[in-house]
């Protein structure tokens, strides 16, 4: 473990994937490519402690078991490929304290503030995908586990997302990026790994 390591993964595995051993540094983006069903999302869910598995994960040297599941997941945020919503409007998904942060992020992703109060089911898939990214960033995570965050976006929006993520990386956020786009992986990821049949290779 080097001094800049933020997330250390040791022999993390589930019955379907792993074992994974990996170190991710502060401000580093690790991109993961691989065919559908190869275990990319399984890996992210294991990291977020959403599925049971064995092995160890440390955040800044602290073992995952030293904090509760919710506390871990608010620091290591899993951003699902298909974001789910449980209230009628996007605004209802944010707490009062997140308001300023959300207002600051909307223009960066070319979104109008009016979208926050519209019926969430009326928004386009791309709008929902960007709003979901704002929702994940508004938690102020230390590690962001992104599952195909730009799959429904046009080139301009993809560029906006990339710029936003790059600025967050510079601020010290660590990102694990699962994507099918080799171009995106190459532009954002300092390292590219390949997932095949539940195994991670360089």
């Amino acid at each position, binding site marked *: 473990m080097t001094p800049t390591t933020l997330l250390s993964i040791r022999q993390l595995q589930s019955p379907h994937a792993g074992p994974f051993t990996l170190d991710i540094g502060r401000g580093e983006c690790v991109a993961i490519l691989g065919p559908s069903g190869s275990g990319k999302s399984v890996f992210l869910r294991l990291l977020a402690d959403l599925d049971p598995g064995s092995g160890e994960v440390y955040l800044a040297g602290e073992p995952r078991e030293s904090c509760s599941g919710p506390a871990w*997941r608010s620091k290591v*945020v899993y951003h699902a490929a298909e974001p789910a919503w449980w209230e009628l409007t996007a605004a209802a998904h944010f707490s009062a304290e997140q308001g300023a942060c959300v207002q600051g992020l909307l223009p960066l992703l070319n979104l109008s503030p009016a979208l926050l109060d519209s019926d969430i089911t009326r928004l386009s898939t791309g709008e929902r995908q960007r709003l979901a990214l704002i929702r994940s960033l508004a938690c102020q995570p230390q590690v962001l586990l992104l599952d195909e965050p730009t799959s429904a976006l046009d080139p301009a929006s993809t560029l906006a997302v990339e710029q936003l993520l790059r600025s967050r990386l510079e601020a010290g956020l660590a990102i694990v990026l699962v994507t099918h786009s080799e171009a995106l992986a190459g532009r954002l990821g300092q390292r590219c790994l390949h997932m095949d049949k539940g195994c991670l290779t360089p």
Partner: protein
Amino acid sequence: MSPIRLEPLDLFLASALVLLDAGLSVALGLRIHRQVLWAAVRMVVQLVLVGYVLRFAFALGSAPVVLGIVVLMLLAAAREVAVRPAHRLRGAGNFRIGIMVVGMSTMATVLLALFTAIRPLPWYDPHYVIPLTGIILGNVLNAASLGLDTFFAGVLSGRAAIEARLALGSNVRKALAPHIRDAIRKGLIPIINQMSAAGIITLPGIMTGQILAGMGPMEAVKYQILLMFLLAGGSGLAVAAAVFLAARAVTDERQRLRIDRLTKR
């Protein structure tokens, strides 16, 4: 007035009405005539058997016999709670929830009634304990199984949203809250309907039975009111306990959603 006794011939004549249902099924192609007849036969056999069991229990009137019968009733009700929902917890989880919930809520309400309102001598007098337990069990069973069914279905269909909330750092109580509320509400609807319809739309069973048996209407009404309160309390306790236990069962110590612990019937 003393009750008018029914003779076997009276029942025989009434049984023709079941044949009417069966005939309807044949005529309209409903294909339920066998079920109707089988259910009628079951009903007669079960009730006659219960009649003998009650006669035996009333004659003996001993605490162990009453307790034995009550335990058998609780087990049967717990099994019904377990099998009714469309989804089940692995490892007989539904039955474990059923027995805990049915036992706790029924005992609490029956004992409350026995020691505060009815006060029979001795307190375990089977004339009171067994019918009271039966009526409360029926309602408790209804509330608990409706609650469980609604909760499991809600968690399964709302899985993505629950996990999205968990992934953003929510605790399970918050993430499951809408489904817990829905399920408890659903379990309480039957008793709310019963209470609001009582006397106007329906003449409740106990009251009807006691009037037929010769009790004065006001006495019968008082019994019915007591019973409705007991049923409301029993249903509430049962459905809340069932849903909270189910919520515990589909989550774990790391506050993850464990859908893998549910199987479809």
